[in-house]
């Protein structure tokens, strides 16, 4: 009997209704006070972000169970919901930091009261071990660290117990924000080292199944493929304790089932609902829907310059004028998101990113542009979409196909399975015309351009190559936003992107979540994963 008391103890009486499986009851209400129940559509595959093959949904472990040196602030969105604030970098485990006078190092002072969940203090040695691990294990974490010019272990120095220094390879505005992303999380190195072996010096096997952090929660239970149970870490020092004692994350693959669960009030939060469900659930009384535009992310139509007709700028512009934007936004996005067409001027007024491109649906103009090229009568081109993202790509592709047909460009839609998409679209970059959904974690236009407009870079699936863009991005990437030279460079970049259109933005997508009225503290983060650190329940 006492095994089950794990969850039931607090609410034994409330639970008695659960005894009969076919009795009307509401689980979230019946769950003991202080428990929040979340459903997600994907599956978690590791507790260790640094491990090879760890999938995106698992990044939430790093967010909820670990701290970083620094974190981003929080802001209120116009609709009253919470979002992280990339313009504010605030203390997390580090209470203060400063650039050395020579500008070559960043020195962090760790908070004196910071402890791991086992009670041992957080030391600079732990920080060094963790950052060393992030740059040494390879794969995605190492690439992400590199974006912040954090490349090798020699850069990280534990000066004394509470002082930690990073020697900079170059001054860059990206270094500090890159320390606030989920990758450089701080691990209890004493615990981890105990489980390290000769073949596995970074304790990947242990940390894959266990957490050893100082974060807001500990993992109380993980049933792979089914659920993860977070338990509040009462020793957490990096913020006010969460208002709930326990968060249960259940994996429910079927969107229809997730929707039934949230509508019935049996779960508190359905994280990441489809645009269609978001629109329809918003009309329900007992559910709140929060849709936050995903920063630095665009859904784009990409004409590939490796395909001859698209080498002509006028052909690309003609395509951009032959896209039925409005309809796509209604049908494929269910009106959830921010329109990225119909910009007023060919030269940007400010450096807000993303901002609408100066194109709209104008078939006459498209025909006129095409008439100026050697493809007056149009041409045929295969149009590829990613099957894993078919929910928006398929309707969008069908509408684009119709639009392009009106100006004589014939397309045949090819659906590519998700597993092959990456290698064909991004690595080999061989899809002549396709849809793409890149979004950058670090919220700077130059960061987006770095990944999506530079020759050879992964998300430049259009094979775009412009020496001026390469030069501008190279100069702007590490430059402070406050630098007077920054704005003109970004403006010029946007101007080129508007004119050359190797990527034709359709809209900026949103991350939607549906929650019961009693759940508080839902916050949007750029990493688009569950952050339960501010959770609370009204009336609990």
């Amino acid at each position, binding site marked *: 009997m006492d095994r089950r008391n794990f969850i*039931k103890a607090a609410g034994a009486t409330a639970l008695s209704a659960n005894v009969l499986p076919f009795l009307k009851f509401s689980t979230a209400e019946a769950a003991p006070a202080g428990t929040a129940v979340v459903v997600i559509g994907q599956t978690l*595959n590791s507790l260790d972000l640094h491990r090879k093959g760890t999938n995106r949904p698992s990044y939430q472990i790093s967010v909820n169970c670990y701290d970083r040196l620094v974190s981003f602030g929080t802001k209120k969105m116009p609709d009253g919901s919470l979002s992280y604030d990339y313009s504010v970098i605030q203390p997390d485990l580090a209470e203060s930091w400063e650039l050395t006078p020579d500008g070559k190092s960043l020195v962090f002072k760790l908070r004196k009261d910071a402890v791991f969940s086992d009670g041992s203090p957080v030391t600079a040695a732990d920080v060094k071990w963790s950052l060393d691990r992030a740059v040494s294990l390879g794969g995605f974490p190492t690439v992400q660290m590199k974006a912040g010019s954090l490349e090798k272990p020699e850069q990280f120095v534990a000066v004394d117990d509470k002082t930690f220094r990073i020697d900079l390879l170059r001054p860059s505005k990206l270094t500090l924000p890159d320390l606030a992303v989920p990758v450089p999380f701080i691990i209890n190195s004493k615990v981890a080292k105990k489980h390290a072996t000769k073949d596995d010096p970074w304790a990947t096997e242990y940390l894959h199944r266990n957490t050893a952090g100082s974060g807001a929660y500990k993992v109380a239970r993980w049933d792979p*493929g089914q659920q993860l149970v977070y338990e509040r870490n009462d020793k957490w020092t990096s913020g006010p304790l969460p208002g709930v004692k326990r968060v249960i994350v259940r994996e*429910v*693959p*079927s969107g229809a089932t997730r929707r039934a669960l949230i509508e019935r009030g*049996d779960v508190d939060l359905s994280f990441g609902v489809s645009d269609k469900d978001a629109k329809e659930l918003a009309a329900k009384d007992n559910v709140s829907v929060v849709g936050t535009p995903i920063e630095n992310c665009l859904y784009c139509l990409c004409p590939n310059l490796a395909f001859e007709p698209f080498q002509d700028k006028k052909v690309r512009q003609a395509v951009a004028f032959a896209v039925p934007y409005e309809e796509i936004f209604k049908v494929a996005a269910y009106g959830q998101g921010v329109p990225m067409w119909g910009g007023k001027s060919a030269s940007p007024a400010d450096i807000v990113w993303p901002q609408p491109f100066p194109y709209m649906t104008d078939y006459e103009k498209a025909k006129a542009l095409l008439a100026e090229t050697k493809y007056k009568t149009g041409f045929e081109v295969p149009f590829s979409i990613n099957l894993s993202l078919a929910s928006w790509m398929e309707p969008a592709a069908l509408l684009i196909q119709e639009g392009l047909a009106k100006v004589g460009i014939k397309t045949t839609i090819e659906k590519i399975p998700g597993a092959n998409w990456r*290698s064909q679209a991004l690595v080999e970059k061989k899809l002549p015309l396709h849809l793409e959904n890149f979004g950058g974690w670090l919220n700077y236009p130059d960061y987006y351009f770095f990944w999506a407009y530079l020759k050879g870079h992964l998300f430049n699936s259009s094979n775009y190559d412009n020496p001026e863009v390469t030069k501008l991005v190279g100069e702007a990437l590490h430059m402070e936003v406050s630098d007077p030279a920054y704005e003109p460079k970004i403006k010029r970049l946007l101007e080129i992107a508007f004119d050359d259109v190797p990527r034709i933005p359709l809209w900026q997508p949103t991350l939607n979540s549906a929650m019961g009225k009693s759940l508080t503290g839902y916050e949007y983060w750029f990493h688009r994963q569950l952050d339960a650190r501010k959770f609370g329940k009204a009336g609990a």
Partner: protein
Amino acid sequence: MAAGSRLGTIARRLGQALPALFGVIVVTFVLTRALPGDPAAYFAGPAADEKSIAQIREALGLDRPLPEQFLYYLKDLAQGELGSSISTGQPVADELIRRLPASLELTFFALLLSVAVAVPMGVLAATHPGKPIDHICRFIVTAGVSLPTFFTGLALVFVFYYLLGWAPSPLGRLDFAYLAPPTITGFYVIDALLAGDPETAWAALGQLTLPAITLALFTLAPIARMTRASMLQVLSSEFIRTARAAGLSGGTVLGTYAFRNAVLPVITTLGMVFSFTLGANVLVEKVFAWPGIGSYAVEALVVSDYAAVQGFVLSMAVLFVVLNLIIDILYTLIDPRIQLDS
């Protein structure tokens, strides 16, 4: 037949299955590698560069030539190692051991329901051919088999959970208010009962009901149709006419003589339906968040997770061999004229 010789026959039969299993191993190995898609690129993550992809390829051993990979795989297999799935981060064997009982429990329960309904229905239809009961049977069977399972599943969820609130939340094998019972058989209902915990058993049964009904509706058709056809055939045969002429009661004729003779093809069908349902109820698993092996295999296939796919196919092959053997043994019990090694 002496018990010893029967055991010997079983061993011989299992031995005969080995070449087939080896064939399965070779074919899955080759097929998974022949699939387009690069697991290294996939698992390297969205922002990986050439170098990190190469690192992952090396870590996965995918940079080695195929024959060498195959030898390593065989060596691991011989030691009972199925490898580790990269997408779930768990050893394949662990995962199968955890997920197979979920699938088995669901399939067994669904088939039990299905047989309980389909066999009497088939018998009734056969004894009253062309009558209303026959037509009703035909209607139910047609409806059951033509409705896609995910649709039936969603419809049941909609009515019994969403509208009426009779069924518990479709959240997998157990509601989060309960902890899984200690594993003995892997079947939650049975394990909970063995642990003396009727509450959890009841809750597990509640979770099981809707998905099992969904599957049962689907599997009703072949069983009911086969029962009807084979009963019709037996009922028109001479020994039944003789039995009737001899003045035996209707019940004895039907139960002892007709049904026992008609049940053999039904068992064959049952075996087919069972193995088919076990792997193919992916959609039911998705709708009810059921952690079974069907969705595991499909997800592994989608991301070219070689070890997981191979492990799944191999375990299904083994299961199939065992199942066929059990069915053959059942035959000999039902019809003494049939012998295992014939």
